[in-house]
């Protein structure tokens, strides 16, 4: 999932200096950038669907008003993704006006964001940029297809990584099946032929097999999915990867679709499977 929005969760401690400064800071930040989403610890605690969706689909920064770190703990409870956090105790303890403290918190966060954007990505998967994704709008549904991958008609992708391949589920698949809550991955060392089952997963809508998009041997499986299967929904082309496979015959990728071919196929499939019509 392409994370474009910023979600800032302030401390909710009404009786704490850190809470007041946190809330003033997010108000100031939103006045500077109206696209920033101000999170609510109360809404997360109540598990309001829109709040959870905003949390999981955004870049998250917590402002912890004290060492209790309630904001960070709430985010950890509801999202498996990494997030930034700042603790403002040192600022609130300063002998300065509330406006000066508020500005200092905002500056701290902006410096953190600048440092994060300049840092070399630590993840194996590259961050999405510009034309790295093909997209198609179908009514209110956006289909995303990552360039450079190969795609099976069973809606799984293959990425070549030297002599090995990495496979996962497409954005179309994760949208069709909805929230995945359980996954059963096959063992490392398992060999599968093209079309064979490599485990299964269950979602709120369906239980389905992981159908191998190529023949080969499982070298590694994404064990993070066993505790956080929702990563497939949140980041199907990145952290939601399923297996690393040593292919039997790399020429088998000729059977698969390119990104452009899969986009066309996916649009037609989405029309049928999601009951939507393509907007002209």
């Amino acid at each position: 999932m392409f994370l474009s929005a910023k979600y800032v969760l302030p401390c909710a401690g009404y009786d704490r200096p850190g809470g007041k400064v946190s809330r003033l800071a997010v108000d100031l930040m939103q006045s500077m950038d109206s696209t920033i989403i101000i999170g609510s610890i109360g809404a997360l605690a109540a598990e309001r669907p829109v709040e959870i969706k905003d949390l999981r689909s955004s870049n998250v920064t917590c402002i912890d008003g004290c060492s209790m770190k309630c904001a960070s703990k709430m985010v950890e409870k509801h999202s498996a993704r990494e997030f930034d956090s700042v603790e403002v105790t040192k600022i609130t303890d300063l002998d300065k006006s509330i406006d000066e403290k508020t500005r200092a918190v905002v500056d701290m966060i902006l410096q953190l964001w600048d440092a994060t954007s300049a840092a070399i990505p630590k993840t194996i998967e590259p961050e999405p940029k510009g034309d790295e994704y093909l997209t198609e709008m179908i009514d209110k549904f956006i289909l995303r297809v990552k360039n450079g991958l190969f795609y099976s008609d069973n809606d799984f992708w293959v990425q070549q990584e030297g002599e090995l391949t990495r496979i996962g589920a497409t954005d179309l698949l994760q949208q069709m099946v909805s929230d995945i809550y359980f996954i059963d991955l096959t063992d490392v060392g398992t060999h599968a032929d093209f079309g064979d089952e490599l485990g299964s997963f269950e979602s709120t809508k369906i239980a389905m097999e992981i159908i191998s998009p190529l023949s080969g041997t499982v070298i590694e499986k994404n064990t993070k999915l066993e505790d956080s299967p929702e990563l497939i929904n949140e980041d199907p082309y990145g952290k939601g990867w399923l297996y690393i496979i040593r292919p039997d015959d790399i020429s088998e990728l000729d059977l698969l679709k390119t990104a452009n071919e899969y986009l066309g196929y996916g649009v037609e499939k989405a029309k049928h499977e999601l009951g939507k019509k393509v907007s002209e």
Partner: protein
Amino acid sequence: MSNKGGVGSTFMGVARETIPWWPEVDSDKCDGCAGEFDCLKFCPHLVYKSLDNPPLIEVENKYNCVVFCKACQKMCPKDALSFPNKSDILRIIKEARST
């Protein structure tokens, strides 16, 4: 999910009707799950239909069946569902693609 027929669609660039992938129901084993029809309830692609007196499952929309998917087979408590050999199906697809 889908209520559209698989007829007219393609799989791996080949017309779906040329790929002989669909479940076979062993009517000697099938008892319709005593009227619960587990496979029919499970499959989102409307492959199956139910019969009554006695309860029994039949395949209605065979080309709706997702090629290489055998998820319903695990649902059957009587082991009454069977599928073609996947390597045979892949060979058929490859031959069709080459023509």
